[in-house]
C-alpha cells in the first residue's frame, strides 16, 4: 500500500488531456482537458451532456477512444485491475440485488472485492449502521424505499474503502428529505478522507457539496472552478432597486469592484434618494444559463427524474 500513500501525497485525483469518446458516429465527449486535486468535485450538466459516459470512462467501465487519462495516477485502460481496487462506481441505476437482504448485498460486494468473510462482515455492519440501515439490514432489498436503496447502493460501493468514489446522479429521484440526508452522508464521506466525483443536474447540489464544479455541455467542458469562480465569470454584483412591497424595479449590473458599485450607487442615490437597494451576487443558475444557453434542472423538478429508482 506504499503506492496508496504516494497517491494521496502528490498525484492529482484526475488528469485528463484530450479525452474523446464516441459511440459509433455519435461523439459523446470531445477533447476534454481536466485536472482535479483530491477532494469532492461535481460534474454538472444537463441530460445527455456526457456526464455518465465520462464517469464510466474514469471508473474503467468503458474504454476511451483518444487522449491521456490518469485516475489516481493510473490509466483506466492499461492499469485497469489496479485502479479497480481503488475506486468504486455507484451508477444511476441501483446495483443492489433485490432478492438479497441489505447485509447479504454488502457481504457479496465485500467478498468480490477480495475481503475475507470476517472483514467483509465487520465492514458491512459498520457501513449499515452509518447509513442508518441496521434496522432493515436483514430485510430483502425489495422492501426498501428508494432512499434506502440508494443508501445501500452507496454503502456497498464503500465496502472496500475506495480512494475515489464515483457517484452518478446520487440524488436523482429522491424526495427532499432523502436528498438532504444523502448530502450529509456525502459530506461526511469526504470529511473522512475519500475523494468523490459526483455528477448532477442540480446546481444547488453542486453548490452545496463540491469544491470544484466542472460544467459539461454537449460533450465539452464549458467551465471549471469553484462556485465563486463560476459566479465571477459572468460579472460582479448587481444592484437591485426595490419598491416598498419588495418587487424589483430595476437591476443594474456592475463590475463588482467597490469603486464601480459605489459609482453606480451614487448615481441611484442622486436620482432616487428613497429607493430600497440590495447588492446581490449572481446565482449559479444564471451562470449555468450563461454557459450552456440552457435552463438547468432544479431539485424541485426531480419528480420528472428517472423512474427506475423507486420501482
Amino acid at each position: 500500500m506504499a503506492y496508496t500513500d504516494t497517491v494521496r501525497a502528490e498525484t492529482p485525483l484526475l488528469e485528463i488531456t484530450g479525452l474523446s469518446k464516441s459511440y459509433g458516429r455519435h461523439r459523446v465527449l470531445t477533447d476534454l482537458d481536466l485536472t482535479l486535486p483530491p477532494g469532492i468535485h461535481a460534474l454538472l450538466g444537463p441530460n445527455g451532456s456526457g456526464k455518465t459516459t465520462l464517469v464510466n470512462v474514469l471508473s474503467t467501465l468503458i474504454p476511451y477512444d483518444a487522449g491521456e487519462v490518469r485516475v489516481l495516477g493510473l490509466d483506466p485502460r492499461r492499469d485497469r485491475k489496479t485502479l479497480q481496487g481503488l475506486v468504486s462506481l455507484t451508477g444511476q441505476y441501483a446495483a443492489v440485488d433485490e432478492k438479497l437482504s441489505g447485509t447479504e448485498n454488502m457481504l457479496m460486494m465485500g467478498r468480490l472485492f477480495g475481503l475475507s468473510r470476517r472483514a467483509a462482515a465487520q465492514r458491512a455492519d459498520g457501513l449499515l449502521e452509518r447509513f442508518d440501515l441496521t434496522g432493515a439490514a436483514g430485510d430483502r432489498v425489495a422492501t426498501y424505499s428508494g432512499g434506502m436503496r440508494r443508501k445501500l447502493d452507496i454503502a456497498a460501493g464503500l465496502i472496500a474503502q475506495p480512494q475515489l468514489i464515483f457517484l452518478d446522479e446520487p440524488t436523482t429521484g429522491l424526495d427532499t428529505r432523502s436528498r438532504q440526508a444523502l448530502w450529509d452522508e456525502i459530506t461526511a464521506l469526504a470529511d473522512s478522507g475519500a475523494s468523490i466525483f459526483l455528477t448532477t443536474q442540480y446546481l444547488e447540489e453542486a453548490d452545496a457539496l463540491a469544491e470544484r464544479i466542472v460544467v459539461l455541455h454537449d460533450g465539452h467542458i464549458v467551465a471549471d472552478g469553484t462556485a465563486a469562480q463560476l459566479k465571477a465569470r459572468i460579472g460582479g454584483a448587481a444592484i437591485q432597486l426595490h419598491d416598498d412591497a419588495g418587487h424589483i424595479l430595476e437591476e443594474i449590473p456592475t463590475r463588482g469592484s467597490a469603486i464601480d458599485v459605489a459609482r453606480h450607487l451614487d448615481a441611484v442615490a442622486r436620482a432616487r434618494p428613497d429607493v430600497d437597494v440590495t447588492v446581490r451576487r449572481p446565482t449559479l443558475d444564471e451562470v449555468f444559463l450563461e454557459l450552456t444557453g440552457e435552463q438547468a434542472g432544479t431539485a424541485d423538478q426531480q419528480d420528472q427524474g428517472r423512474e427506475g429508482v423507486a420501482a
Partner: protein
Amino acid sequence: MTTSPRGVQAPTSRRNGTGALTGLRVFTGRGLKHSFRDPESLLMAILLPVMLMLIFVFIFGESIAAGQGGDRSDYLAYVLPAVALTAAGFGASYTAVVVSNDMTTGFMNRLRTMPFPAVTVLLGHTAASMVRNLLATGVVLAIAFGLGFRTDAGVAELAGAVGLIALWILVITVVFAVLGMVAGSAEAASGYGFVLLFLPYLSSGFAPVETMPGWLQGFAGHQPMTPIIDASRALFSGRTPGDEWWIGLLWCGGFIVLAVWLAAVIFPRKVAR
C-alpha cells in the same frame, strides 16, 4: 461504526482483486438463494414435472402405448427422459430472466468496475440452474418410481442417463443465458426462449418419430433432443444405447462451444450506457 479516517485503513484488509473462483462461489450462492427464495418459481420447478408426468402417463399414456402394442407402464418408461428434459427446459428458462435482469440494471456495471472477472456472474447463474434442474430431475425420477417404474439398469447406466440429462440441462442453460444477455428486458428474454420449450414435443420423447407425418419426421428424427432422449431412455431401462449417445454428446458439445463463444463475444460489448 464511527467513520474511520480513510488514510489509516489496514493494508492487510484487502487484496487487490479476487479470482474467478471467489466470483464463482459468491455468485453460485447468490443464484441458489434466488432460486430457493422465490416460492413461485420453486413450486413451478417441482409441480411442473409432476403435472407433466401425470398428464402424459394417465391421459395420453394408454392410447399412445396401445398404438405401439404396450400398456401404461411401458409408456411411463418411454416418456421418462422427455418429461425430465421438458421440465429442465422450463427451469433453465429462468436463467434468461435473471441474466437479463443483471445485464439491464446497474448490477453488471458495478461488477465490471470491480477487480475480478465479471463474467463469473454468468457462471454462477449456470451453476445455480444446474443444481435447480437436477433437483427437478430427481423429482421426475421419484414420481416415476412412485408410479411403478422399475428397471434392471445398474448404477452406471442410471448415472449415464442422468449425466446425459445433466448435459442437456447445461446446454439449454447456456443457450438461455445468451438469450438473457441479448434480450433488452427480462420479459423479452423469456419470450425468446418460449419456442425452445416446445422442442421436446417435436422429438422422439413423447411419441415415436415414425408415427409423425412425413414432413415432421425429418426434423423430429434429427433434432438434437432425439438422440439424447433415445440414449437416456435406453440407459434408464438398462439397455446399451446405439450411436445415439455420441451423436447426442456431439450436439451438446457443439451447442456449448457455440454458446460460450457467443457469450465471450457479446458479454464484453453489452455495457449499459
